């Protein structure tokens, strides 16, 4: 699938190519000369319709005497052997010399890269030359200069002394402009982040969000754990996308170990992934009502969510579907009794959810708050590489389940809902439509569930291999990249969650709206802080 692109690129940029390989199907890795990297990235982005899905910095000095940067693109497939509408991954990699720890920033051409590059600067000490906003991102001002946690000579347990330095927030000045600081500890029971609104009266002029309060060193920790324990870590990247992250992790390692998991495991994974989407979306729709003060809708949504959580617990033993995944398949099977339980519960949920929607979504007071609030334009969404519900509500037709089919998604038929308004209402409606699609997917899978084993044993994984693992979580694409080390450990584990790419869009959407609409806009994106901060 990637051959045609490769041929095209080699003719265009023949002077810049050093090497290429396809370690796993559908992932092409091209090593390029550093000076040509920006040009090739721009070519892929501007001419081929590629989107930047991840960017990884890795300290490979012990292996080949330098740092390495990886740029991951998702490209529309073309050529005769390619199924209509599918996409493939092309990954550029380049070496960064230890003596000159800097690289040319691609942010001016591809805004989607701006956080990746700042993160690489913080954690690896490589300077993105030409980055328009090279402030600190992951490590806050309490972190002293000269310590780079993701370098191999930095030990996970090191705790450098606390320093204090000022962090400069962008300010809006003028007559009647007020600053409203919010957080990191919020009034509600939600995660920590700092928001600073500049407003005139009720109208917001500018919003700056400061995140990464929850940075706990997840990626570094994964490097010292055996791969079996890394799975527990993957499940704890995020509470409510737990199964999605765990599946991404397992899929990457299964690709690296080159094993085929049983068909039944694929089906069951898909069912659990959809159950995860269900409880999240149903809860989110209820939560929107909390933002508009429609408490009946909120209570009803919470009740339906609780029913789905109880279903999760009844079939897997955990309300968050934890402890089910393992590298090589699943740990527990689904009995016939539980299969019927899922079907009957979902039928009931479908009925009740439909009734809830009929009440809450057509009220004039509700529509007044939701419609034309917090509009994310398609251009901004594309520039920032926004994914998931937010992308599909702004007219970006992307869904990993269809574009890069994994697990058993190629065995079922489903629609990918799409809207173009880009407002809060559109994001809520996308979720509503996806709830019904999810139920349809689960029903199809349960009707045709194959029998057989649910896992294959994976004792060890080969060293210095790499692959992507990806899933479409309730919030969007979760893309994990793993490079293995000897003794069945990980050399580098890069987690790119859906929230990570969607967060920068929120502050751009808010200006022009009124302060009381911010919670509503925030809830309509419903992003997770933990999978962003890591």
């Amino acid at each position: 699938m990637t051959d045609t692109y490769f041929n095209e690129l080699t003719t265009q940029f023949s002077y810049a190519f050093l090497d290429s390989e396809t370690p796993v199907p559908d992932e092409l890795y091209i090593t390029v000369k550093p000076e040509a990297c920006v040009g090739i990235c721009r070519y892929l982005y501007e001419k081929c319709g590629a989107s930047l899905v991840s960017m990884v910095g890795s300290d490979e000095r012990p292996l080949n005497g330098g740092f390495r940067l990886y740029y991951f693109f998702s490209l529309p497939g073309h050529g005769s052997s390619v199924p209509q509408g599918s996409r493939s991954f092309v990954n550029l990699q380049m070496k960064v010399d230890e003596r000159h720890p800097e690289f040319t920033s691609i942010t001016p051409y591809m805004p989607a890269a701006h956080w990746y590059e700042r993160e690489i600067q913080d954690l690896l000490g490589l300077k993105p030359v030409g980055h328009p906003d090279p402030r600190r991102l992951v490590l806050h001002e309490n972190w002293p200069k000269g310590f780079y946690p993701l370098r191999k000579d930095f030990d996970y347990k090191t705790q450098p002394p606390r320093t204090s330095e000022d962090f400069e927030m962008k300010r809006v000045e003028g007559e009647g402009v007020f600053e409203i600081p919010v957080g990191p500890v919020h009034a509600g029971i939600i995660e920590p982040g700092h928001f600073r609104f500049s407003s005139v009266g009720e109208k917001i002029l500018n919003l700056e969000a400061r995140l990464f309060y929850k940075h706990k060193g997840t990626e570094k920790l994964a490097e010292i754990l055996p791969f079996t324990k890394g799975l527990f870590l993957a499940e704890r990247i995020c509470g409510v996308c737990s199964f999605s992250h765990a599946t991404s992790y397992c899929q990457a390692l299964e690709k690296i170990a080159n094993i085929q998991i049983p068909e039944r495991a694929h089906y069951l994974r898909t069912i659990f992934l959809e159950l995860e989407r269900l409880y999240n979306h149903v809860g989110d729709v209820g939560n929107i009502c909390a933002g508009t003060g429609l408490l009946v809708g909120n209570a009803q949504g919470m009740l339906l969510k609780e029913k789905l959580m109880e279903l999760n617990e009844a079939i897997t033993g955990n309300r968050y579907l934890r402890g089910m995944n393992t590298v090589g398949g699943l740990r527990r099977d689904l009995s016939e009794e539980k299969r019927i339980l899922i079907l009957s519960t979902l039928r009931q949920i479908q009925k009740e959810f439909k009734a809830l929607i009929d009440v809450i979504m057509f009220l004039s007071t509700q529509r007044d708050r939701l419609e034309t609030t917090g509009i994310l334009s398609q251009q901004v969404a594309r520039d920032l590489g926004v994914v998931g519900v937010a992308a599909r509500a702004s007219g970006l037709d992307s869904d990993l389940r269809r574009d890069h089919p994994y697990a058993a998604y190629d065995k079922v038929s489903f629609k990918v809902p799409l809207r173009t308004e880009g407002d809060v209402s559109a994001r809520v409606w996308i979720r509503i439509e996806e709830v019904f699609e999810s139920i349809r997917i689960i029903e199809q899978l349960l009707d045709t569930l194959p029998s057989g084993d649910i896992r294959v044993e994976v004792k060890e994984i080969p060293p210095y291999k790499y692959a992507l693992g990806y899933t479409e979580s309730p919030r969007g694409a979760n893309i994990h990249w793993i490079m293995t080390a000897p003794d069945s450990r990980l050399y580098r584990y890069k987690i790119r969650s859906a929230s990570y790419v969607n967060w920068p869009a929120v502050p751009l959407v808010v200006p022009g709206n009124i302060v009381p609409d911010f919670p509503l806009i925030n809830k309509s994106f419903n992003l997770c802080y933990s999978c962003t901060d890591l």
Partner: protein
Amino acid sequence: MDQEMIEFQKPEENQEVLRTHLEELGNHLSEKIGKIFGRSLHIREVDSGSCNACEWEITALSNPVYDLERFGIYFVASPRHADVLLVTGPVSRNLYTALLKTYEATPEPKLVIAVGACACSGGLFQKGYASLGGVDKVLPVDVYIPGCPPRPQAILQGLLLAMDKLEQKIRKRNFSDLHEGDTCHRP
């Protein structure tokens, strides 16, 4: 763990047991709160770096199934109104100051409850460059609620334990106040 190892009760029975248990727990707790405070119990939740699962379980306590407020338990927006701090997460380096300030803003006598494996011991994260390894490395913790995440019932059970602890704390404080010759402040 093996697939044969855990067989659950029938889901409906399981839920039945849990619901009955919830009522008993809640009523017991409500009685205790009434005795100690003569008003409802005010809780402030602080996230010090959790994965969000603990937050959702605490939020679930307010849904119509658990409906915590009927037992006289209320989540407040500011630590200045709180009797109890529920802290989740292993305390990330970037939240250390925020957690300390929240604690300092909470009036005495106050209780700190560590919710979830990370808050209790650092969990999977332990002590690292960005994780301080548990709430008790930073604040005095009165009650630990283990679990990843703890179920809503477990959090209720933890609150019940916390009330016993608070009773002791108040008794001790009143006694020491008297001892020093100060006037006795009844809560």
